[in-house]
């Protein structure tokens, strides 16, 4: 399958990207990993006049933790995130999620920022960003703005990025206390999109929860942030009642549809089950389950 014809640009600076985007007025697409854009173009679901390949821009593959936040450049690939010591030490939700994105070959190219901009309702990173309160930094010839991922993801493949904007960076707040995070993903086979994905994030100080984040993948028109479930955790804590309420409210927040991956009822049930499992692991009373442990065992290699 060949994409439709397009003009190809591979600039070496961010400024050139911004000028091209301004010039093409919505007819150009930025390509980083290309793991979603190229398949879409092959299927002719997308046929931009111009593809702006940003892979030749030096210095966009940075990860920098300073000033209480982690900055992730637009060219940081999933493969790098899987292997990142910083994530393993301080961003457990991201380090749990990274090895579950697609497969090793796709992770070698695909990027976190690209995934967010693609806004696939089954994209995994959106859930982590919603749970942790992540942001995206967007630049255009008119200037720069920071968009909370909550406001970025509008619907299936729709974001609040303007056509002339280039998302150069994602940001996540650093933990202030003892962080906990886990991403549960059910997939039919390795590399499949999520049947259901559940991201759970906690920041704790002493015994109390200072931040709680729960967000979902694959059960709505975009990733869903479960605000009520988060509130239930903040007020109820990791008690049996608190966990039960959070799981129930997260399942209620899901808007699953019946499809080839399962019935709506099944998916809603999975949300509830995964929230319970993650939170029970957070209490330390339940051991981490065998499938998650396998990710930990092999994650350093892929």
């Amino acid at each position, binding site marked *: 399958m060949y994409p439709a014809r397009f003009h190809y640009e591979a600039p070496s600076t961010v400024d050139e990207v911004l000028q091209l985007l301004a010039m093409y007025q919505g007819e150009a697409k930025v390509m980083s990993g290309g793991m979603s854009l190229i398949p879409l173009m*092959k299927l002719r679901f997308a046929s931009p006049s111009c593809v702006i390949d940003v892979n030749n821009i030096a210095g966009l593959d940075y990860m920098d933790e300073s000033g209480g936040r982690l900055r992730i450049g637009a060219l940081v690939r999933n493969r790098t995130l899987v292997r990142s010591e910083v994530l393993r030490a301080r961003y457990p939700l991201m380090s749990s999620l990274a090895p579950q994105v697609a497969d090793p070959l796709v992770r070698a190219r695909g990027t976190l920022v690209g995934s967010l901009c693609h806004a696939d309702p089954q994209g995994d990173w959106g859930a982590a960003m919603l749970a942790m309160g992540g942001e995206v930094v967007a630049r255009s010839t008119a200037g720069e703005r920071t968009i909370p991922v909550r406001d970025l993801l509008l619907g299936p493949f729709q974001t609040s990025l303007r056509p002339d904007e280039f998302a150069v960076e994602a940001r996540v707040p650093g933990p202030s206390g003892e962080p906990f995070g886990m991403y549960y993903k059910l997939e039919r086979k390795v590399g499949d999109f999520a049947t259901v994905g559940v991201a759970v994030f906690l920041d704790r100080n002493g015994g109390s929860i200072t931040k709680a984040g729960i967000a979902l993948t694959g059960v709505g028109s975009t990733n869903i942030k479960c605000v009520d479930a988060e509130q239930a955790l903040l007020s109820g804590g990791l008690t049996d009642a608190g966990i039960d309420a959070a799981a129930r409210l997260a399942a209620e927040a899901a808007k699953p549809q019946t499809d080839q991956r399962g019935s709506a009822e099944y998916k809603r049930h999975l949300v509830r089950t995964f929230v319970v499992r993650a939170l029970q692991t957070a209490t330390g009373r339940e051991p981490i389950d065998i499938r998650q442990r396998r990710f930990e065992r092999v994650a350093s*290699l892929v």
Partner: protein
Amino acid sequence: MEVRQISVTINDETRLVEVEPRMLCVHMIREVVGLTGTHLGCDTTSCGACTVLLDGVPVKSCTLLAVQTDGHELTTVEGLGWPSELHPVQEGFKEEHGLQCGFCTPGMMLTVTALLEDNPDPTEDEIRWAISGNLCRCTGYQNIVKAVQWAAKKMAAERTSVSA
């Protein structure tokens, strides 16, 4: 029609190739350069039959534009070895019957070669994890795992004999 001239090093040989921007890397390798060891399977980023090494990292060449390889290095199965001089990974697949129809094999071997570069002594879990982006419908993977273990052992022995 927009045509770009790119310079790409394939199996240590640098070539000037003319490609349309929409040409996929796998088509350049097979149809322009004529190296047909790289297979095109699903054409949808799922199966990994088209795996090649891009600067040493395994990627799916059906989901990469040929023009993106300008200034980069590709390794295809032809760059691994030849019948008279097989790469240990190729020998392993032969010795342990790591293939049946052979369609996934070139991609599988390139993924495995990169794995063994990174991790010369992988566990079975690590092997299965590393090849999880390459589908095989014949072997049930069992003999592929054995082939990788065979190759790891052979390469370890070669390293020892070189250093001795």
